[in-house]
């Protein structure tokens, strides 16, 4: 087009004194930003194609590259920001729905950062996790109201099936298709080594990964891709996906171009066809319908596996969770509005749903008020960014957390939020064989294991500081939390006091 209504977001800066023209940047950029002009012996960059994934910066052997924000600015306007204007130009050009990837990047409040943790001083002793035992093991699933014993001391109560986690962290649902096989393998191997679980997402389970079944949560979503007997039997638990934090109320669409042979076999759909997950499950229009699917899946797995129901955090989440708890589900997973995605309409991602902190607090309170908290475990997702967020989530009432974005960061993702293009330079959100091989699972799984070990150490340190020696004793312990800079209403919803109180 002769007129460029909007300008590139980034500027590729090359320090010519440092550049040795090794062309690694050129070879590693799937967006074809860099090129070498042999005639002039010079490296050229086309900033217009750059998505700021930082791949070239990361591999440049002489640190010659920097990606900076393009200093070019439209006339300052607090109402019509440059981004909003650019989006209008793009839509005027294409007539299409704007697509985005990963979680909501807007400046909404992050409640994790407005909550502070307690520590023991004088009147109760802190615990040193390096010297004293500290328990981060948790069990997810229904907990019996009471336990009966036989005369010989053995338990005489039917214990419902549970998931045992060595630490209260799991890898959230990311389908094979939305992420690469190597990314999946990294997650599966890490979960197995760590004694936690990863989640297949809605894309079925690749035949090579059945061996990781004991550490796999298999998902049943509205598209029902890849769901059959062996799939359900392979997993340690079955998750029904009702919604996703990044795009509540809408389904999914994996373009036909990504449905290559392996994915078509795994998803059980013809090669090259679009994989469309409908917005609703066409057989679920009520809690009673949900109950039918929960029990169909339990029946299919001989009541040996817990069933998880995953929903997006939306306005009436507490009542919805109460319904799910009564539907027979063992675990409720709630995904906040910051949750990631491989592709979502920008307007939905940025404007639909509620913060996970508030959703979690209100769900936990509602289930406790109704006396059914023991009927379900609560797993929260949607931007758990650090071990501190994990500790705060548990103190607000969660049993465990799902991490997706943090796990992808461990694998190299730099949150350029361009997954929908399928040209992930880090080999994560792509199916192009030359890009997929950039993620070596031998390296990837170790980085994931390192991350969770690091968080586990930090969780123990924080719990120890509070004088608490197990996750079980921290759960729902909101007295350990104080808010800063929050309104009365926010504190009321979170069920915590303000700092200084």
């Amino acid at each position, binding site marked *: 087009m002769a007129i460029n209504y909007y300008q590139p977001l980034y500027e590729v800066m090359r320090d010519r004194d440092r550049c*040795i023209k090794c062309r690694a940047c050129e*070879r590693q950029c799937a967006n074809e930003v860099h090129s070498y002009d042999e005639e002039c012996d010079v490296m050229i960059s086309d900033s217009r194609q750059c998505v700021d994934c930082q791949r070239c910066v990361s*591999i440049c052997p002489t640190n010659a590259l920097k990606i900076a924000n393009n200093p070019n600015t439209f006339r300052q306007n607090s109402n019509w920001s440059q981004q909003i204007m650019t989006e209008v130009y793009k839509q005027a050009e294409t007539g299409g729905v704007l697509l985005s990837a990963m979680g909501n990047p807007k400046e909404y409040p992050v409640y994790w950062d407005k909550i502070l943790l307690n520590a023991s001083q004088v009147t109760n002793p802190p615990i040193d996790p390096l010297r004293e035992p500290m328990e981060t093991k948790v069990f997810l699933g229904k907990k019996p109201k009471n336990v009966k014993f036989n005369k010989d001391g053995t338990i005489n109560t039917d214990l419902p099936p549970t998931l045992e986690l060595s630490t209260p962290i799991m890898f959230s649902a990311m389908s094979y298709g939305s992420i690469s096989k190597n990314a999946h393998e990294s997650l599966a191997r890490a979960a197995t080594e760590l004694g936690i679980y990863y989640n297949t997402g809605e894309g079925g389970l690749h035949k090579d990964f059945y061996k990781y079944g004991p550490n796999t949560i298999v998902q049943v979503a509205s598209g029902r891709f890849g769901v059959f007997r062996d799939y359900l039997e392979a997993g340690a638990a079955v998750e029904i996906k009702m919604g996703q934090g990044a795009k509540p109320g809408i389904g999914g669409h994996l373009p036909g171009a990504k449905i290559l042979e392996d994915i078509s076999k795994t998803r059980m759909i013809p090669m090259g066809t679009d994989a469309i997950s409908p917005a609703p499950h066409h057989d679920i229009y009520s809690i009673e319908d949900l109950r039918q699917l929960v029990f169909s899946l339990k029946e299919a797995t001989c009541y040996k596996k817990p069933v998880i129901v995953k929903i997006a955090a939306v306005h009436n989440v507490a009542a919805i969770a109460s319904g799910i708890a009564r539907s027979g589900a063992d675990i409720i997973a709630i995904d906040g509005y910051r949750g990631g995605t491989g592709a979502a309409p920008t307007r939905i991602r940025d404007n639909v749903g509620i913060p996970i902190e508030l959703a979690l607090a209100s769900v936990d309170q509602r289930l406790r008020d109704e006396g059914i908290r023991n009927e379900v475990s609560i797993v929260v997702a949607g931007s758990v960014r650090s071990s501190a967020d994990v500790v705060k989530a548990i103190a607000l009432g969660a049993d465990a957390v799902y991490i997706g974005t943090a796990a992808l960061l461990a694998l190299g993702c730099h949150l350029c939020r361009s997954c929908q293009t399928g040209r992930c330079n880090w080999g994560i959100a792509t199916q192009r064989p*030359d890009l997929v*091989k950039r993620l*070596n699972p*031998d*390296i990837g799984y170790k980085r994931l294991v390192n991350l969770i070990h690091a968080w586990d150490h930090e969780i123990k340190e924080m719990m120890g500081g509070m004088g608490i020696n197990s996750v079980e004793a921290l759960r729902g312990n909101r007295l350990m939390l104080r808010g800063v800079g929050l309104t009365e209403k926010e504190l009321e919803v979170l069920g915590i006091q303000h700092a200084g109180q």
Partner: protein
Amino acid sequence: MKKVYVNEDWCLACHLCEYYCAAANSGAGSMIKAFAGGKKPIPRIKVEEGSGINFAVQCRHCDEPACVKGCITGALSVKDGVISCDESRCVGCYTCVMSCPYGCIVISEDSSVIQKCDLCLKNNNGEPACVKGCPNGAIVLEER
């Protein structure tokens, strides 16, 4: 003996090993200095690519090395399984270049002597520069 191996599944053909190798053996001390002023030091590792398969090749340190057998001056020798070249004895006849079945022996910048991988034992890199610099763990130093 530990040798350098390449797993073609993970080789991305980024060619960075070539640059890390050339810089390490240039004696310049840094990558920028090694290539400063348009210099092009020659690497002892070469990435072969095409048809979707890529792999880096350098001296295999063969048990029965044709290069050592063919060397007319005794510049090439095997010590503890590592084949290295005494450049003061090399006369640049290139017999080894022609006899190496892997094409792993290269000619120096001024064409006077040959150069080959000696597992970075002669420079101060510590471990083979290609192994250290590979961004995807495709090049490994291990016992097989």
